[in-house]
Structures are given as C-alpha cells and as structure tokens.
C-alpha cells in the first residue's frame, strides 16, 4: 500500500529542499559571476565611494545610489510597516470574520497590480500633490517611499493577519479574564505570541521594497544625487540596474551587474539589521 517508505519521504523532501535552495543560490552565483570581475577591474573603492555615474565616459560610481536605496527602503518601511501591522491587528481583533474574508483577498489583490500601474499612479497623482504642496520636482525620495510603502502593504498585512489569528484563543481569554482591555491584550499577549510571523511579514515586505524596480524608476526621478531632503530626486540601486540594462553593453552592462552584487550585500546587511532590531524591540515588549 505504501508507495514510498518514511526514509524515502525524508530523502525526497531533502532533495526538494536543497533543489529549491540551490536554485536560489544559482541566482546569487549568477549575479556574482557577472558582476565581480568588473569590481576587480574598476576598483571597489572607486566603484563604491565615487559619486560620478557617467557610463558613456566610463565613470561608474554608485555611492549616491547606495545612500538613496537605504533612504527609500527606510522610508517605505516607515510608511508600510506601521500601517500594515496596525491594519492587521485591527482587522484580526476588531472586525468580524465574515468581513475579513472579503477584505483580506481584496488586500491581496493589491499584490497583483503590476508595479507599472503603481508607477503611473505615482506620476499622475502623487507627484503633483507633493510638488504643489511641498515643492521640488515631485518625483522624489518621498514619492518613492510612499509608493513602495503602499506596495508592501499586502505582504505585511496578510502574513501578519495569519500569524495573529494563529495565536490560540486561550491566550487571549486568559488575558481578558485578568481584566485586561482588548488593547492591553493585543499589546501584551497577541503581539508577543505572533511576533515570529510579524517579523517574517516585515522582512518579506522589506525584500519587496528593496527589490522593486518599475514603480521606483517611474516615481523616484532617478537623478544620481545624494539626497539632501525627501523632496530630492534619487536613483536606487535596483532602479539603476533596470533603468539602463535595456541599452547597456560591454563594460556598462558589467557595471550594472556589479551594482547587483553591491545590492545583494546591502540586502544582507539590511536583513541582518532588521531582524536584530525588530527582534530586540519585540523582546522588550
């Protein structure tokens, strides 16, 4: 009756696990293989710390883009994470299940809207609002952060809702029975019990924010500038890759892949900081 033995299942699962992971590794290797030679040729210091990006003159400095990437990601997290987690808490604690069964799929719909559509909304609606009220060109760090913040909402909200709903009812009842208000219960019990899922949602959301290209290209303005205010136009590392890849050949193309390598390192650093920082805050609570 049994087709595969228990040991066989384990081996099979191990193979799938490692094939999935090696597919992901392959991508990492691919980027490094295409980009690393350029860094050696051009010099890491010059590449990282020069502010001069003029591919036609053979000048490839990505410092402003690193700074911009960090700011835009931080901005997006400031917009998306609190809104998303708050929304998830409210929806799962205060809203009846039947309503949530409609709202949650609808929020996940936002994940399927092509990022180009977000880009157009940014250019046509958000940028003019920023320009008319705050000045500057409108297409800016601020616009990029807001659009990205909105784009990560479905990821943050959906995954958080799941982990909040997975908190056993007895925890909540225990807290409420001790005379805690709903908010105190959320604050002291629910968040703590579901923190692993909330962290995962924020980190996946951050991944989406760093990795998003099309929408950022359209709304952030793409000047290779170290931003001095949120109203300045900026170019992120991802934008740089997607923006120029379609015409890039030779050294220029390699430089774009090298941008990918640096991006990868930035992601690693950001992920480490994020997981440590979030975990610390959560633990304090």
């Amino acid at each position, binding site marked *: 009756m049994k087709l595969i033995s228990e040991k066989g299942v384990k081996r099979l699962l191990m193979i799938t696990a490692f094939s999935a992971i090696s597919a992901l590794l392959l991508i990492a290797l691919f980027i490094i293989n295409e980009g690393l030679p350029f860094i050696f040729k051009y010099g890491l210091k010059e590449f990282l710390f020069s502010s001069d990006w003029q591919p036609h003159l053979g000048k490839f400095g990505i410092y402003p883009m690193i700074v911009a990437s960090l700011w835009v990601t931080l901005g997006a997290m400031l917009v998306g994470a609190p809104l998303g987690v708050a929304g998830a808490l409210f929806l799962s604690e205060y809203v009846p299940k039947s309503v949530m069964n409609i709202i949650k799929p609808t929020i996940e719909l936002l994940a399927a809207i092509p990022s180009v559509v977000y880009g157009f*909304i940014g250019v046509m609606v958000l940028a003019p609002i920023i320009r008319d009220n705050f000045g500057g060109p409108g297409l800016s760090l601020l616009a990029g952060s807001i659009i990205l913040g909105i784009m990560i909402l479905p990821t943050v909200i959906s*995954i958080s809702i799941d982990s909040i709903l997975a908190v056993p009812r007895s925890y909540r009842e225990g807290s409420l029975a001790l005379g805690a*208000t709903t908010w105190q219960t959320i604050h002291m019990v629910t968040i703590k019990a579901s923190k692993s899922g909330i962290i995962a949602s924020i980190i996946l959301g951050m*991944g989406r924010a760093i990795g998003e290209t099309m929408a950022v290209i359209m709304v952030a303005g793409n000047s290779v500038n170290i931003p001095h205010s949120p109203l300045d136009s900026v170019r992120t590392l991802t934008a740089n890759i997607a923006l120029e890849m379609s015409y890039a050949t030779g050294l220029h193309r390699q430089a774009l892949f090298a941008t990918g390598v640096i991006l990868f390192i930035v992601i690693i650093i950001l992920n480490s900081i994020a997981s440590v920082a979030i975990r610390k805050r959560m633990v304090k609570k």
Partner: protein
Amino acid sequence: MRIHPRYTQGGAVAVLGGATILTLMILVFIIFFILEKGLPVINLNFLTSNPEDMGRAGGIFPTLIGTILLPLLAIIIATPLGIFTSVYLSEYTKETKVTKVIRFGTDCLAGIPSIIFGLFGYIFFVITLGFGWSIISGGLTLAVMILPTIIRTSEEAIKSVPKSYREVSFSLGATSWQTVKKVILPNALPGIVTGIMLSVGRSIGETAAVIFTAGSSLRIPSSVFDSTRTMAVHFYILAREGISAENAYGTAATLIIAVLIVNLSAYWLMNRFIAKRS
C-alpha cells in the same frame, strides 16, 4: 502619571482603526483609479479578439491566455517545492546553523529585483538550456522568483500549528510524513494559501522577469515552448511606449477583476475545506 486603561484602549482603537481606514482608502482609491479609466473599454469583444494596429485597437485575448498559463505554471512548480522545503526545514531537521543560513538566504533573495531574475532566466533558460522565449522559461523563472515568499509563509504557517497536535499524532503511531500530511499541512493551510495568493499576485503583476524570459509575443501559443504575453506586459508596453492609454487601463482593469475573482474563490474554497474538516 498613569493613563487609565480605558483611555489607552480608546486611543489604540482610534489609531489602529485610523490606520486600517487609511489603508483601505488607499486600496479603494487604486482600484477605482484603474477601473474608472479601464472599465469603459471593456466589453466582450475586447476580451475575445486579438490586438490590432499595435494594440491601439482590438482586444487582449492572447494576453488572457498568457496571464493564465504563466502564473499557473509558476505556482505548480513553486508550491510543492516551497512547501516541501519548509516542511523539511521545520519538521525534518533540527534547528542548526545550516537551517538559519538557509532561512536568512531565502529572506535575502526575496529582495533581489525581478529584473535580475529576468536576466538570469534569459541567460540560463532562454539561451543556455535553449528553451527560447517561452512559457516554460517564464514559468521556471517566475517559480524561482516566488519561491522565497512561499517558503517563508509556509514555514510561518507550519510553525503556528500547535505542538500538541504533533505530539498527539506521533503518540497515535503516526510517522513524520503522516503527521505532516494529516495534521500539519491541513492546519497550516490558511497561511500557506496566503503565501500562494501573494505569489500568484506577484507573478501575475510581474513584467521585467517575464519580458526577458517568456517574451512578449502576441501570438497565441501552441506549446509550452512558445512565447506569450501577459496582461501586465501588455499594459507595460502599451503604457510605456505611449501607444494607447485607454487599452492599457482596459487591460489593467480586466486584470484586477480577474485577480479579485481568483482570490475570492480561492478563499471561498479554502474556508469550505476547513469547514468540512471540522
């Protein structure tokens, strides 16, 4: 000074509710923005005829097919891979440095821009493996792209299944796989479905990775080795090359209506499944 719990309660409800309302308003605005521009062009003819005159006239029929096939293929490949991986990581191995590194690596890859996945797919599937611009190249590339999301969400869902269920199942003489199949996966289903829906969304909305791997041919594919164009790519080309804003938004509106139907029915099916079980 200590604030009375009743006030913090009220304040918290106001803040959380406010954030939720703001989020929902943004959501509604985006949907209305697209529908308002797109609905006027949608009719039966638009859905069932081929694009004409560079996409300025005619419909979007071939892109409907691409939009169904590509994400479906990606999901079919990535879902078992992702779920099995997370099952392996959470049920079959002890928490070690290796699993931590794997998890961290997965998180990092979730942040790789889709264009990189596209270029990778282009060089690996399209050129090296010789699949050409095709549904299969695109599906495989998208599958790799959504893997991190599926792995992480499934893992979180599996983690949230109470430990006592596992103990009971084992104590009743279940093997690990029987426990996974009968207790863990069914109870982790809501979380897994969330991951799948987010991934479906991501692969339906994706452009860069698709253009480089599945191509953007408007012909109706006759095999998985043929190229295809998804609605997102169609929107991308029409809107970015400034060909036809009307048809671009018509495509986007069709897309969100289709996705909404898919999402709602997936959740309806899931809830029915859960209700039937208990």
